[in-house]
């Protein structure tokens, strides 16, 4: 029972506690080791002495004293007297976890001086509390490779002295963009699962949404953070309807909408409405993508979706971030809004641009639109092209089924 308590506190608070310890101790590894020791002490002491009134503060305080003891022992050997002095001085400081610490931590983990792979891994390890093995599994790399990636990143933070602080106002927007990109990468990795058997790794989606909430809570004036959270909530609301019992993909238009998470949709839509009211057509790209997802989420059926508005939103998105993928989505929305011929023309133009060469969804879109127009022979050829490019197993099965279903 008491054991469970320790783990409950630890699980929920790990990121916050670690963030504060890194600030107090000035080193990722020292903080992680100390936290591990404090957890061991808690497992021994709490069942006997009772759970302390403020378990997080207890863990921080204990971890810190463990770290100082360790540094003292090491300092005696290496005569690092000034380091002892620095840490003893710190004892007098505030030990409660402050929210700002988690923000410092995510900005350090997502510092542009680290590779993006390392940013993702460090964020999940420190703020998400995932084990090295779990992160390795999620990104399909061997555990020793992931462990080495984390060790190198932490060494670079220490040796190059990447600061542990929230960037100043003039750099905040740019740095926040990098943080949001990492959070969205984590979400997409969980949601799309590019390779392998296609089991959707929802743990990553949950982690990303938790991080998104943290950004909104700690940076309340940053509109794009709200946009990112809304986007993730709305995509994730369809979790229960995206795969059928045998693990095959169910297209948006065929999903059982009663399986969508209503509470999550309401939360996402409310965020989008605030954003559009405040930002209008000057909204950022996450807000616009969230607005598109909100239109899908609010429609009672695929046919009842406001595709005209969706096509217009993709147009706005293309203005901010010109991208062939956005253009492809706009083309599909134009077709869905009723003008299949016009949509197909846009898709064909994109295909000539060659920027999307090898992108299976372009072939899929072409096949789908040709099917709708009754041009089945051409449609078949494009499904076959898509099958030659696809890497995800669930998507492959889905395309094979579409191909079989052609008259």
């Amino acid at each position, binding site marked *: 029972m008491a054991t469970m308590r320790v783990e409950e506190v630890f699980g929920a608070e790990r990121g916050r506690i670690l963030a504060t310890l890194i600030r107090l101790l000035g080193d990722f590894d020292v903080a992680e080791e100390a936290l591990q020791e404090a957890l061991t002490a808690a497992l021994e002491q709490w069942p006997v002495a009772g759970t302390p009134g403020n378990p997080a503060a207890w863990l921080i305080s204990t971890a810190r004293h463990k770290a100082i003891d360790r540094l003292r022992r090491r300092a005696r050997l290496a005569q690092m007297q000034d380091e002892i002095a620095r840490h003893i001085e710190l004892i007098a400081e505030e030990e409660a976890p402050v929210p700002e610490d988690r923000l410092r931590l995510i900005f350090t983990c997502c*510092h542009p*001086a680290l590779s993006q792979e390392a940013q993702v891994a460090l964020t999940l390890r420190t703020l998400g509390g995932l084990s090295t093995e779990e992160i390795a599994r999620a990104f399909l790399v061997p555990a020793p490779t992931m462990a080495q990636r984390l060790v190198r990143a932490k060494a670079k933070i220490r*040796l*190059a*002295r*990447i*600061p542990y*602080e929230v*960037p100043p106002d003039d*750099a905040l927007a740019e740095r926040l963009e990098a943080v949001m990109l990492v959070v969205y990468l984590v979400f997409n990795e969980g949601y799309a699962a590019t390779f392998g058997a296609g089991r959707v790794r929802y743990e990553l989606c949950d982690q990303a949404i938790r991080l998104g909430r943290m950004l909104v809570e700690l940076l309340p004036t940053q509109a794009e953070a709200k946009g990112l959270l809304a986007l993730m909530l709305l995509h994730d609301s369809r979790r229960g309807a995206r795969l059928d019992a045998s693990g095959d993909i169910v297209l948006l238009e065929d999903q059982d909408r009663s399986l969508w998470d209503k509470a999550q949709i309401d939360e996402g839509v409310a965020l989008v409405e605030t954003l559009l009211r405040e930002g209008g057509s000057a909204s950022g790209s996450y807000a616009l993508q969230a607005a598109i997802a909100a239109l899908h989420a609010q429609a009672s059926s695929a046919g009842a979706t406001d595709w005209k508005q969706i096509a217009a939103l993709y147009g706005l998105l293309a203005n901010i971030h010109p991208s062939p993928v956005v253009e492809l989505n706009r083309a599909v929305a134009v077709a869905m809004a009723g003008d299949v011929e016009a949509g197909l023309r846009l898709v064909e133009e994109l295909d000539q641009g060659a920027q999307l060469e090898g992108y299976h969804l372009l072939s899929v879109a072409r096949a789908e639109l040709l099917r709708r127009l009754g041009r089945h022979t051409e449609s078949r050829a494009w499904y076959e092209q898509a099958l030659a490019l696809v890497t995800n197993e669930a998507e492959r099965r889905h395309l094979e089924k579409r191909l079989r279903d052609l008259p």
Partner: protein
Amino acid sequence: MRYMLLIYRDESQWDASPLSERKAAFEAAVAYSEDLRSRGLYEGGEPLELSNTATTVRMRDGKATVTDGPFAETKETLGGYSIIDAKDLDEVLAIVRHHPLVKAGLSIEVRPIRMGPPK
């Protein structure tokens, strides 16, 4: 905390640009460094001659052998260095982002200077 800025340039491009431009870039870099020095951030630095003036010494078959040319043949080569004393990496990066040589199209690598023996 001390950092070395390693300034890299595409030599064929650099060498082909008009002398007046190269002089202007040099003067801007000197002025920038002097400003950094006045704020206690700059410890020193020098430009280097082109890599076709380089000579490399390495051990071959137990003998220290001298060869013509740089350590590695690369498109961009080391063209100079500066030593910066800053609070942390962000402070150095802010300095480097505004460096006139970056604006002139050169690349600057930032490396922490290790204190003492290898650990």
